[in-house]
């Protein structure tokens, strides 16, 4: 009578060799992933950081079948719509213009107050927090962290409503992209820089983060110099290097002299370079004012060091292909500068 290891295999009728091979396959999978806390303990945060910068809000938002009401619809109609679709809020729109949002809280208030038969325009929230479709996903995550809302309307540059993004949408796309990224990393030895780095070729991506200490001017500029070196080694063209280095340097100096301290993050991939300056406060009261040439809150000490001319932010904006700034008092400021590396002039030819 043939021996079948039923206890070990749960009634498996495969041969011992087949079972052992399956065990080995399982073991191989366990060693190399797919769990995110993976093999070298360094690559995963880079992957996530890169994804959060690369992906835009428009990549995760739902842009079709947006469930909405018009201003003259009743609160009762909005309530039924939410109930039917298992959602906690509906935008109030006319064409593509967003007028407000009716949330589940507004419905509860309407039921309690007896105005559930009123038109939505009377009770909708009009002081709205919205996302823009070109914002990096990192900003969307920050919004979900900072506000209690479970979903945000997404507007384009013309301020039209183009989609809705919920935490669920973000998770869904992030999981999909992370899976792709991990499959790519696992498929190639070496992980973080999988493409062979030929002379003059850009690496797939790399990321560095530099801490910037408040008022430590003797060290300010080191991050920008390192970034310049990295770009040069990656074969980026001289003029592009200079633009990126200028932005990195200005932002680094800004964090050093105007904030309580923070960091400069630099991400480089085959298509773009991204510099992100993030500080711990005190934030900028009037961002538009701060972006104007020659406006500065610098003191004499800063000026004696050659800075404080009020050109930092405008200089960074001038050299970047994409510039974004978000600031809140007193939590801090985040500035993002992106540089397109796809243009022929962005790659060194000699």
């Amino acid at each position, binding site marked *: 009578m043939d021996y079948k290891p039923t206890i070990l295999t749960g009634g498996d009728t495969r041969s011992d060799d087949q079972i052992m091979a399956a065990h080995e396959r399982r073991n191989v999978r366990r060693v190399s992933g797919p769990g995110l806390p993976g093999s070298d303990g360094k690559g995963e945060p880079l992957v996530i950081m890169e994804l959060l910068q690369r992906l835009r809000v428009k990549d995760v938002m739902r842009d079709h079948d947006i469930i909405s009401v018009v201003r003259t619809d009743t609160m009762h109609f909005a309530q039924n719509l939410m109930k039917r679709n298992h959602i906690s809020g509906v935008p109030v729109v006319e064409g593509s213009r967003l007028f407000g949002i009716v949330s589940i809280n507004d419905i509860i208030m309407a039921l309690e107050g007896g105005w559930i038969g009123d038109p939505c325009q009377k009770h909708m929230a009009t002081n709205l927090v919205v996302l823009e479709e070109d914002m990096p996903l990192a900003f969307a995550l920050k919004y979900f962290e900072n506000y209690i809302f479970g979903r945000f309307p997404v507007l384009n540059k013309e301020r039209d409503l183009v989609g809705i993004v919920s935490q669920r949408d973000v998770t869904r796309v992030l999981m999909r992209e992370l899976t792709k990224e991990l499959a790519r990393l696992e498929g190639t030895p070496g992980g973080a820089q999988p493409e062979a780095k030929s002379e003059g070729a850009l690496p797939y991506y790399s990321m560095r983060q530099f801490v910037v200490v408040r008022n430590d001017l003797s060290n300010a500029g080191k991050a920008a110099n390192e970034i310049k070196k990295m770009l040069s080694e990656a074969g980026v063209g001289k003029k592009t290097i200079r633009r990126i280095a*200028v932005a990195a340097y200005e932002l680094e100096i800004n964090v050093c002299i105007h904030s309580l301290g923070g960091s400069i993050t630099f991400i480089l991939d085959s298509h773009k370079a991204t510099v992100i300056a993030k500080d711990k406060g005190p934030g900028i009261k009037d961002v538009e004012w701060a972006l104007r040439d020659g406006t500065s809150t610098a003191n004499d000490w800063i000026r004696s*060091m050659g800075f404080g001319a009020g*050109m930092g932010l405008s200089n960074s904006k001038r050299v970047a292909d994409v510039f974004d700034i978000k600031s809140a008092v007193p939590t801090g400021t985040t500035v993002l500068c992106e540089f397109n590396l796809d243009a022929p002039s962005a790659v060194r030819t000699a």
Partner: protein
Amino acid sequence: MNTTDIVKTLDGTLVAGGESDRTVGTVVANDLMSDVLLNDGDDILLLTSLASDQAIRTANIVGAMCVVVHNAKPLPQTMCQVADTLGIPLVSSPLSKYESCVRIHAFLEAEAGA
């Protein structure tokens, strides 16, 4: 105009960074580093009164070929170290920045006319 010419013309001393074969493409005379960063010229000769590490770091960002500090200002040791590390010639001159501008202009005019 190379580093040797700059030192000679400005009665200066090369204090750090070493000699360089590079020649002057653009002359920038400024003490505000953000203004220097605004300049798009190549092979910048930076004439400044700012005796700090940041003058050298800024020079490196814009790819400057030489930095001259004026009025015989004492140069911090760290400034010289940064210049050595980044390989940017650092010259100390007893002249005022204005006088330096005049002399360099005359030199470049003569060089162009030669």
